[in-house]
């Protein structure tokens, strides 16, 4: 058995588990159903980790043609799975987070539907299969199918508590906007097929490169690029495609939030990078300056708007959701440099951010269980008997701000160095604001600092949230505490384990190698290996900037806590709040405006 033959297993294992749970879930007790969920999700995680360890060198790619339909004379009708380090690594990250989410919900979901114990783990397993398939596929249409699979399951999981008014509304907005994005992507795939007659990423890229152009590419190629990217950027929640995300993340059950904020949003960024480098990075694709301009502009807008909105929130889950929006913007800036250095920094940032954000959502879930509220003002001073959760929450705030030696700090430092001086200012500002917002909330909630807030706000508060457990649990289950601790430790490890950094550097080198990918998939010759770039590492400037943004975050939080909370949200931010209207039609209109903006930027 070769390493490549493990690839289908990573996708098939959770699918099989989901099918078994759906078939037998009605007769199984909850305990057995959850154990099954564990076994299958951990199985996929084990396959992914094995494959990572087995791969002989960093720039090798495991290629598996399903059913043995290999390309003959350069033409193929088969479907291919390609596992390079980045893809398999993301599959491993996804699977580990799925296991964490299942562990977290072990004692958590004590509510209906009681009659079918298998439904929640089955949905989570399907979700895992969709995500793993999306990162491993080497075929554009299959990527769309997996994209829709994980989308549909995500809508269902967001609206899992169907008895709640907010949950169904958030899930509906999520579903409609993301499906619209998906169909835009399919439209783009159709155009690419019309132009090249191929569906595989490598094959489309090879056909495009057969007709190199000096200046501006074909209008059809440009249109296809914009349309394919639109769906991926909707998933990544880049401004102005981001409106669905806070609504969905604020209402989803906490274990689902862990997955939504931890990986789904990042998969949108991954898809953007993958499609660009495999299809459009060659001489027949889109010129680098256009892509750089488009991604950088969207990234800066996303980072700043997300950070400002994050600062204005009092609903903890919404606050964390906007912080995810802001950080996606930073990831897009890191990718927009279009070099292995920028991508390597982004990979480290994504890895650590997944741990931190998942841990923060897990802490918010504990607060929701204890106090039936996730409202910063209402919880003021009430959680002082939870020192461990408070410590985790504050540590999460500092990690978001980029404090060394957290992995977020390392990822931020490396991306900043690659991006240049003025995007660096955006990095510092966005991470200080998002970290400061979390620190402000922890100072108020866990330490009771500042005047006690009162007042009747216009925006969404976290007051009347239904607890997700049947009555407060007698004590916080160990699993609910162990999961955020482990995830935060993982985020710390990304910045502390030097062995990881060269592996990430080599993975980024291989990921940005357009010719190498095509040759490996189609089996045509051995192109020159990509030039080796230095591995990501801590630098003096990076540490200083990380400390600067952490100090800024602390200062912001300190200033905010000392002032009366009735001043929040600030009056100057009212127009931004009005944009986030909760109205479906507005969001669709903004999506269309976003397509126009993207076209103008790429043109």
């Amino acid at each position, binding site marked *: 058995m070769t390493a490549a033959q493990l690839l289908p297993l990573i996708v098939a294992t959770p699918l099989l588990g989901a099918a078994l749970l759906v078939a037998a879930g009605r007769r199984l007790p909850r305990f057995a159903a959850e154990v099954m969920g564990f076994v299958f999700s951990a199985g996929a995680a084990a396959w992914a980790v094995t494959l990572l360890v087995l791969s002989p060198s960093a720039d090798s790619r495991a290629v598996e043609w399903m059913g043995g339909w290999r390309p003959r004379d350069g033409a193929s009708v088969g479907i291919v799975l390609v596992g390079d380090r980045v893809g398999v690594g993301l599959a491993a990250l996804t699977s580990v987070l799925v296991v964490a989410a299942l562990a977290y919900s072990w004692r958590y979901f004590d509510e209906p539907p009681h009659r079918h114990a298998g439904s929640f783990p089955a949905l989570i397993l399907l979700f895992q299969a969709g995500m793993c398939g999306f990162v491993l596929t080497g075929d554009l249409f299959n990527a769309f199918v997996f994209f829709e699979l994980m989308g549909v399951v995500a809508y269902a999981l967001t609206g899992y508590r169907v008895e709640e008014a907010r949950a169904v509304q958030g899930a509906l907005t999520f579903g409609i906007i993301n*499906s619209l994005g998906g169909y835009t992507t399919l439209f783009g795939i159709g155009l690419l097929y019309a132009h090249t007659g191929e569906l595989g990423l490598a094959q489309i890229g090879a056909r495009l490169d057969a007709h190199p152009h000096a200046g501006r590419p074909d209008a059809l190629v440009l249109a296809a690029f914009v349309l394919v990217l639109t769906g991926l950027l909707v998933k990544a929640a880049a401004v102005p495609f981001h409106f669905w995300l806070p609504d969905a993340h604020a209402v989803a059950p906490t274990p689902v939030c862990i997955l939504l904020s931890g990986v789904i949003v990042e998969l949108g960024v991954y898809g953007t990078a993958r499609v660009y480098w495999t299809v459009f990075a060659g001489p027949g694709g889109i010129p680098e300056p256009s892509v750089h301009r488009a991604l950088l502009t969207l990234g800066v807008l996303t980072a700043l708007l997300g950070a400002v909105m994050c600062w204005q929130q009092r609903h903890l889950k919404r606050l964390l959701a906007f912080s995810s929006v802001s950080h996606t913007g930073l990831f897009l800036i890191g990718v927009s440099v279009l070099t292995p250095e920028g991508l390597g920094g982004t990979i480290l940032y994504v890895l650590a951010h997944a741990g931190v954000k998942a841990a923060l959502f897990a802490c918010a879930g504990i607060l929701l269980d204890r106090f039936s509220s996730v409202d910063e003002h209402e919880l003021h001073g009430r959680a002082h008997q939870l020192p461990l959760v408070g410590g985790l929450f504050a540590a999460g705030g500092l990690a978001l701000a980029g404090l060394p030696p957290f992995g977020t700090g390392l990822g931020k430092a490396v991306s900043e160095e690659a991006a240049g001086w003025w995007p660096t200012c955006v990095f510092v500002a966005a991470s200080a604001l998002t970290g400061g917002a979390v620190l402000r909330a922890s100072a108020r909630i866990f330490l009771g600092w500042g005047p006690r807030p009162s007042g009747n706000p216009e925006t969404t508060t976290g007051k009347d949230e239904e607890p997700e457990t049947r009555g407060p649990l007698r004590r916080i289950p160990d699993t609910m505490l162990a999961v955020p601790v482990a995830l935060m430790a993982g985020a710390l490890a990304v910045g502390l384990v030097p062995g990881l950094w060269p592996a990430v550097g080599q993975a980024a080198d291989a990921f940005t190698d357009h010719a190498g990918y095509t040759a490996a998939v189609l089996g045509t010759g051995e192109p020159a290996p990509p030039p080796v770039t230095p591995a990501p590492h801590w630098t003096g400037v990076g540490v200083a900037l990380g400390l600067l943004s952490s100090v800024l975050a602390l200062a912001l939080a300190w200033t905010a806590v000392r002032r009366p909370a009735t001043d929040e949200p600030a009056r100057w931010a009212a127009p931004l709040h009005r944009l986030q209207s909760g109205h479906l039609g507005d969001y669709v209109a903004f999506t269309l405006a976003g397509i126009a903006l993207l076209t103008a930027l790429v043109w």
Partner: protein
Amino acid sequence: MSVLPYLAAGWIFLVGCYGLATSRNLIHAVGCLSVCQSSTYVLLLAVGYRRGGTAPVFADITPGSRPVVDPVVQALALTDVVVGATVTALLLALVIQTAKRHGTVDPDELSELRG
């Protein structure tokens, strides 16, 4: 190959988006989303069309004896239909639940999530 089918596909997509943006009823909105999706069927079938081509079923014709339309896009359209049916069913279920919990299916009256 005429450019008309491509223009028609684009037009159907935009009409669906217009309906979504101005919808006053969530069931209507889900319908509009299906209209958007139908544009991708039209596009895919237009891509695979060959003038004078017949169905790509080789039970009664010799391969190579006459042109056939592209079977790949038909497979894609079929997959697309399955995806669309799943999405529509799920969204309609959520609309029913919205009607129960909010007492309305008018997006203008859903104002729980904002700011």
